[in-house]
C-alpha cells in the first residue's frame, strides 16, 4: 500500500502480541511506523526500528519525527512485584515524560481491563498507576478486553493451553469482556487518526461479557462442546499457585493472572466515547 501523509506512529512493545499486530496493521494501512524494541542495539535511535527498554531512561533522540506514540510495552520477565513496579510503572512514567518533552502530540497507552478501581491484581494496579499519569498528561488510555483471534497471544494463549487439558478448569461466575484482535487494531488506528479524542479511558471490548466456560470451550483445540469441564474453587487454586510461586516452581499461569480471571472488571468504560468514534467490537466467537 502507498505511503500516506499523516502521523508517524511509534509503537513500544512492537515484538509483543498486541504490538506486533498493531505494527502490521498500521503499516498495511500506509502509516509510517517506528518500532521500539529492547532486543536491538541500544545505540539504534533512528530508522524504523529503535532501541527502547523500560528499565532504562529513553534517549530523547528515539522520538525524532514521531508524532503519535502507542505505548504497548510491558516487561513480564520480572515477577518480583517491587522490581516489576520499578521497571514497568517507573519506566512508563519516564517514557511519558520524555515523550511529552519531545513534543509528541498524542500518546495512547495500551492498558488492560484488569486496571479498574479497587482491583486487587498487581498487574491491574500497575496499569492503573500508569493510566493516571497518562491522563494527567491529557493523553489517551485504552483498556482491551481478553484479546483473541489470529495467532493466540497473551492471556488467550495461556487459556488456550489450559483448554487443552483433559479436564478444563472453570471458575464459577467468571465472565470476561472479549476483544477480537482485528477490532483492537482497527480501534487503535481510529484513535491514531481521529482529530479530537478526549483524554479519557476507553474500554476496547464487546459490552456483553462472555462466560469463562464458553471462552475455554471455544479456545479448546479442537473446539468441542463435549470436552469435560470442572468447576474449581478459585480460592484454593489461588492459594496453591501462591505456594508454588514461593517455591519457584515454573507455572503456566500466575496467581496474579488468576485474580484477573476470577475478579474481572464489572463494565467496559468509555462506551460513549467509543460510540462517538465509531468503534465497534464483535460478539465473542471463534
Amino acid at each position, binding site marked *: 500500500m502507498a505511503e500516506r501523509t499523516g502521523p508517524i506512529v511509534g509503537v513500544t512493545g512492537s515484538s509483543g502480541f498486541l504490538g506486533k499486530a498493531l505494527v502490521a496493521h498500521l503499516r498495511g494501512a500506509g502509516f509510517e511506523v517506528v518500532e521500539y524494541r529492547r532486543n536491538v542495539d541500544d545505540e539504534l535511535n533512528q530508522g524504523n526500528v529503535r532501541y527502547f527498554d523500560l528499565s532504562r531512561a529513553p534517549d530523547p533522540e528515539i522520538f525524532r519525527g514521531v508524532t503519535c506514540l502507542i505505548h504497548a510495552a510491558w516487561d513480564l520477565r520480572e515477577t518480583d*512485584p*517491587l522490581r516489576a*513496579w520499578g521497571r514497568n510503572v517507573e519506566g512508563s512514567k519516564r517514557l511519558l515524560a520524555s515523550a511529552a518533552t519531545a513534543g509528541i502530540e498524542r500518546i495512547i497507552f495500551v492498558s488492560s481491563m484488569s486496571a*479498574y*478501581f*479497587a482491583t*486487587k491484581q*498487581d498487574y491491574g*494496579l*500497575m496499569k*492503573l*498507576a500508569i493510566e*493516571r*499519569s497518562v*491522563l*494527567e498528561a*491529557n493523553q489517551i488510555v485504552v483498556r482491551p478486553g481478553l484479546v483473541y483471534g489470529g495467532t493466540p497471544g497473551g492471556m488467550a494463549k495461556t487459556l488456550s493451553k489450559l483448554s487443552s487439558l483433559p479436564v478444563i478448569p472453570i471458575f464459577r461466575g467468571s465472565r470476561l469482556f472479549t476483544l477480537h484482535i482485528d477490532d483492537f487494531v482497527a480501534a487503535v488506528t481510529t484513535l491514531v487518526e481521529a482529530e479530537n479524542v478526549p483524554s479519557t*479511558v476507553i474500554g476496547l471490548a464487546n459490552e456483553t461479557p462472555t462466560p469463562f466456560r464458553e471462552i475455554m470451550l471455544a479456545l479448546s483445540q479442537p473446539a468441542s462442546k463435549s470436552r469435560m469441564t470442572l468447576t474449581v474453587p478459585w480460592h484454593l487454586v489461588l492459594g496453591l499457585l501462591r505456594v508454588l510461586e514461593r517455591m519457584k516452581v515454573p507455572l503456566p499461569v500466575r496467581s496474579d493472572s488468576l485474580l484477573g480471571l476470577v475478579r474481572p472488571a464489572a463494565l467496559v468504560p468509555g462506551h460513549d466515547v467509543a460510540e462517538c468514534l465509531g468503534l465497534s467490537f464483535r460478539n465473542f466467537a471463534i
Partner: protein
Amino acid sequence: MKVLIVGAGPAAAGVALALTANSDVTVQVLDIGGRLEPENDEARERMSKAVPEDWAVDDFRAISLTTVASKQHRIPEKRNFGSDFPFRNFGQLDGLRSEGGVNSRVISGAYGGFSNTWGAQAMVFSGATFDDWPFTRSDIETDYRAILRAIPYSGEVDDLAEYFPLWGSADPLPHLSEGPERVLNKYERNRLRVRRQGVILGKARLAFKGRDCVSCGLCMTGCPYSFVYSASQTFDDLVRRRRIAYTGGYVALRLGEDEGRPFVAARSLATGNTETFRADKVFVASGALGTTRLVAQSLGMWSRRIHMQESAQFLMPLLALKGIKDLTQEGTFTLNQFNVVVPFDEVGHDLVQIHGYPFNTAMTDALPAFLTLPVFRDLGAMLLRRLTVGLGYLPSWWSAGFDVSFERPGGEGQVAGATLLPSTGDDYLARQKLRAVTRRLVMVAPLLGLFPVVPQISLSAPGKSYHFGGSFPHSRTPKQSEQSDLVGRLHPWRNIHLADASVFPTVPATTFTLSIMANAHRIARSVLEDDRG
C-alpha cells in the same frame, strides 16, 4: 484602569499577582492590616540575621510559643512568632458569635491573613475536582503555574502526581524526619500491598524554600527566615517595587456600584470615620466568611441562612512500633512531611487526604495532663517518640459544613452581626466515610509501621478546618445573588468581583490555599482580558 483589592490574604495576593503583571493597571489594596507585635517582630528580625546557634535565648523564647489550648476545640490554636495576631480581633470579628461549637475565629484581620499561620501545603486540585465546577482544570492551569512561579515551592514527583501534578519548578524537600522517612521507605517496599487496600503515600508539597531551609524546626511557630510563604511576602514585594499602593487600617463595611462604578465603604480603625474608596473594578478577597458578610451587609441578606461548604477536618493520631532516637524538632523541618491519599474512585474526585506531621514541641503541650506528671513522664516521652499526628480532610460533599446568618449592624460604621450555626444536615456521612478511611489505614498499618489510634480519632468542630467557602459558588447560569458568574460577579454588580473561596463550587479534601490563589489569579486575568476585548 484603577483597581481596588479588599483584603491582603492569599486570594488578594493571587489577584494582585495577575493585575501587576500588567503595567497599565493601578492597584490599591485596602486591608485591616493587623501586624505582629513590634517586640516579637524585632526578635524575629534579629534571628533572621543570625544562624540558629547564635540566636539569643530570649528571642527564641519570645517567638517559639507553640500553641494555646482552645476552649472550644480539641486541636489547639497555633501561634505565630509567639503571637495570636492572625486570629485576633482587629474589628473584623465584632458582632460575630457562634452556636453549637462552631469555630468563631474564622476571619483574619492580619496582614497576610491566615497564611501567616497555615501549614504551607501547596497542592493542585485533582482534575476530577473540576467535574463539579463550571470550568476545567486546563482553564486554570496557567494560573496555577503563575502562582507556583511566584511563591516558594518544594516537592517531588512521586505517586501523588498520579492525581496531583507537581507543575512548576520545585525545590527538593530538606531531609525528612526519622519517622516519616521510615514510613515512606516502608511504603516503597510494600507499595503494591498498600495500594491494593486503596491507600497511596507521597511526600508533602510545600510553599517554602526547601533548598534554603536550615532545619531549625520552627516552621510551625513561624520561620524566622521567612522561608515559609505568607501572602504578606507578596504584598511586601509589590509595595517595594511600587506595583501596588497598600492602605492598612480599614474594615470594609459595604460594597456597591454607582451607575456601574464600584465603591467600598470602610471604617478607619484610627479615626472611626467611614470613608468611601472608588475604582473601576473591585476585587473582594476578605476570606470566605469575611467576604460573605460584606456581601450580605451590602445586599441586605438579613433573612437568609447561608450555607458554608467545608472540607471537614479530622485528627488521627498514629503510633509507630519503633520510636525515633531523639525527641527534638531541631535538625528537621516541622511542617507536614508526607501525605496519605485515600481515593474512593478511579478519577480522584472522591478522595480523602491526611497530612502527616512529625514530632514538634506543640505535641508535648497537647499530651493528656496525666502524662506530664513526673511518674508518667517516661511513658509520655515513649509515646511522643512514636507519634505522628495525622490531620485529615474530607471533601465538602461528605461534610456537614456550617451555616451563617446575618443581622443588621448595630449602628453606622459597624459590621453586620453574624451567627455561625451548625448545619441543618448532620455529619452522619462524614463519620461513615471517616470509618471507611480508618478501616483502610488499619489494614495497611502493619505494612507502613504506623497504627491509627482508633479511639482517639475525631472529627474537628465545624469551621476548624479553615477550608470552607462556596457561599456564592461560580456558575455559568448564576441564580440571582446566590451564585456568582465565572469571574465572581453577583447580581446586580458588574464590576465587583468576589475572588476568594466564597466562589468555590465545592471544597475538596485537597489542601486549598494554592487553589484559592490560582482561582483569584484566573478571575483577575479573565477580567483584564475581557476589559481589553
